[in-house]
């Protein structure tokens, strides 16, 4: 497929390197190609935001990196962590890596905490599982430390999950993910179920994370505002592919891919003075459109977009993009740049 991607020059090696990762689910209609050839690097202490509409493969990718896919899902490609390919590891070795080196934060903390276990039990079990040599006191100190950093007072150590508010529970989940000091964490929509003010508090915590720990973070969200706030780089996902990635300020101020631009334009913010939206809806991933998958909805589609897959190239100001508008010009066949006559998109096909 495309050449291996080298990100902006970084003094350190990436913590995690995904190369041409694919995940597909079998259905009676055929295979759903939820993730279809995704490559990226995350540097130590860096936060990468992953944005896109629902159903574009964000969560599948996040889980795929951890090896947490439902039975029946198949995956391919390479995910390099610490010199080893996580995807080709024996399940037992991958299990050992999870929690200790690779952590995960989920959307709904209440469904991830055992209602019958005290907070202390959650922490003690987690720590014991991965660090059996520690004494009882050491375990408690580590747990209390992690809680303290998340602003949960030690007086609540023996409480049950239901005794906490929603925001506190999400802090618990983050503390639980951090207690083993993993090198890399996937946070899948960690603030979606929370109230606005609590959401902002959690975003602040995630923001501090990259300063106070060397933890790298993949932050999956549909909220571009959160990406702007808490991420160093952003990857925009559409129909199973990352169509553009780069530094947040760069990508958001100067989007190269029409999808990135339209996604930003359709976001309602305090400065919204008119409503914009993307016509149509994301494609069926059993049978995605030929060429660029965004071409049926793209306001600037050209003839070439409907027939030939766009090539992953370097963005003019750093990062990667795959869109024929950016190039490479020499690969566009004769007459490929004339505007594509779009079939009329009925509202009926729209979301």
């Amino acid at each position, binding site marked *: 497929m495309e050449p291996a991607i080298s990100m902006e020059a970084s003094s350190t090696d990436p913590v995690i390197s995904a190369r041409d990762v694919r995940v597909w689910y079998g259905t009676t209609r055929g295979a759903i190609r939820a993730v279809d050839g995704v490559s990226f690097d995350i540097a130590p202490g860096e936060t990468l935001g992953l944005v896109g509409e629902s159903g574009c493969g964000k969560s599948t990718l996040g889980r795929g990196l951890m090896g947490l896919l439902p039975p029946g899902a198949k995956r391919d490609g390479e995910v390099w962590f610490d010199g080893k390919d996580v995807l080709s590891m024996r399940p037992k070795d991958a299990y050992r890596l999870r929690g200790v080196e690779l952590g995960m934060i989920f959307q709904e903390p209440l469904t991830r905490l055992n209602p019958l276990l005290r907070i202390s039990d959650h922490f003690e079990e987690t720590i014991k599982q991965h660090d059996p040599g520690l004494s009882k006191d050491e375990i408690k100190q580590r747990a209390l430390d992690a809680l303290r950093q998340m602003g949960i007072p030690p007086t609540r150590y023996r409480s049950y999950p239901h005794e906490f508010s929603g925001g506190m529970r999400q802090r618990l989940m983050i503390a639980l993910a951090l207690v083993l000091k993993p090198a890399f964490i996937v946070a899948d929509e960690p603030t979606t179920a929370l109230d606005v003010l*609590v959401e902002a508090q959690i975003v602040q915590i995630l923001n501090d994370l990259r300063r106070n720990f060397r933890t790298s973070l993949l932050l999956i969200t549909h909220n571009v505002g959160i990406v702007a*706030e808490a991420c160093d780089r952003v990857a925009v996902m559409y129909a199973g592919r990352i169509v553009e990635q780069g530094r*947040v300020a760069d990508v958001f101020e100067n989007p190269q891919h029409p999808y990135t631009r339209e996604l930003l334009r*359709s976001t309602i913010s305090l400065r919204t003075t008119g*409503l914009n939206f993307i016509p149509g809806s994301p494609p069926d991933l059993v049978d995605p459109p030929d060429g660029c998958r965004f071409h049926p909805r793209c306001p600037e589609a050209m003839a070439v977009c409907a027939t030939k897959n766009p090539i992953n190239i370097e963005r003019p100001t750093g990062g990667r993009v795959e869109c024929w508008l950016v190039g490479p010009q020499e690969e566009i066949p004769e007459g490929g740049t004339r505007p594509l006559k779009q079939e009329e998109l009925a509202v009926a096909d729209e*979301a």
Partner: protein
Amino acid sequence: MPTKPDSTMPDSTMPGSGLGASPIVDVRDLSVHFGLRGGTLARLFGRDAGVVKAVDGVNLALAPGEVVGLVGESGSGKSTLGRSLLGLAPATEGSIKFRGQDLASLSRRSLRDMRRHIQMVFQDPSAALNPAMTIEEAVGDALRVHGMRSAAERRVKVIDALERVGLSPVELFLEKYPRDLSGGQKQRVVIARAIITGPSVLVADEPISMLDMSVRAKILQLMLDLKKDLGLTYVYITHDLASAKYFCDRIAIMYLGRIVEIGPTEEIFANPRHPYTKALLRAIPDPDPGRQLPRDLPRGEVPDAAQPPLGCSFHPRCSEATDICGWESRDLRTIVEAHWTRRSPEEYEAERSLVGDLDHLERPEKSATLGKEGAESARAFLDRVRSEAPDDPMWRGVDMIEDEGSGVRVRFHEGVDPALRRSGGVEVACVLYPEESEA
């Protein structure tokens, strides 16, 4: 679009409104309380389990054609208020009048008739549609309920409603089930079902919050188009100030069952007054990376509505709170526990043995006892807590600390529960804004 604060709207003495025309919906002193069941023992001994004041003394008048936003976090009572407009949440006190007629005086039957005129759009379109009904059945069901027996007549109306919400060609949708549609299409169906009875008021409870970013604008645009075509009046319930800013003429900010600030959208955003409004505005992440501001977020979360804070409900989270905002025992617990998150384990253990359990502070009182090793050590402990966070607004509320028993008693100033008062072009419930005398 948004109305100007002073010039275009004639002034009126009607609470919570800036309108001259007679209101289409008039809510006066509305309270909706829910009784708690409590535990088995409490019920056996007839102990009162308490009530949740979901809506607590709200005044709101809707002018015809207006879009009013109810904005707040979960537990603010915004949804309950919205539901009570349809008679779906029974009023404990106060009145709701629709075109001058009090909903409480209506029989079940006439209440149902009345609902033809006030309809609701729900947050989660997947939950709001019956999975076993086709789109035609689902949208037409409202007509059947309201007595339209002929299926052919219903079909004509259903086709018209689906066309209005942009689901055309209609034939593609009539026989479909909700599971065949996308989120945005389902929400269009829900809106079609709401408008088919020809309502004049639509209560939309978070109509776009479950949808994708790229779809939200479409649904908002649809609602604006429908408002223009059908002359609707909207109550837009949301936690999202950004969409409310674009969509609403007037905004009511709610917190724990009360309206804490209400006024024309432009004024609310240009000069937010209530500290809670300011906090909500600061909490909205800006998609422009060049505009990131340092945040000063209120601590904690919406408190338990069954045991609301004394004084102003927002005071425990408020950075501008004064001495009279209603400080109490639970605030002392919060600040002590926050202090302990910054101490080393040894320091924490030592201090903990000094003051013991804090559970007794959970009962809301205007004074609190602390310490079990003598007054001196308790005072020293409080000094340490205070020196670490000297600017915490709670210290403004401490009236005096006196020796008592094996420790000290911290007495707080008497608090006030601020009522809505006029301030500039809006009304706000906060002691920072002195009551203007009515001109």
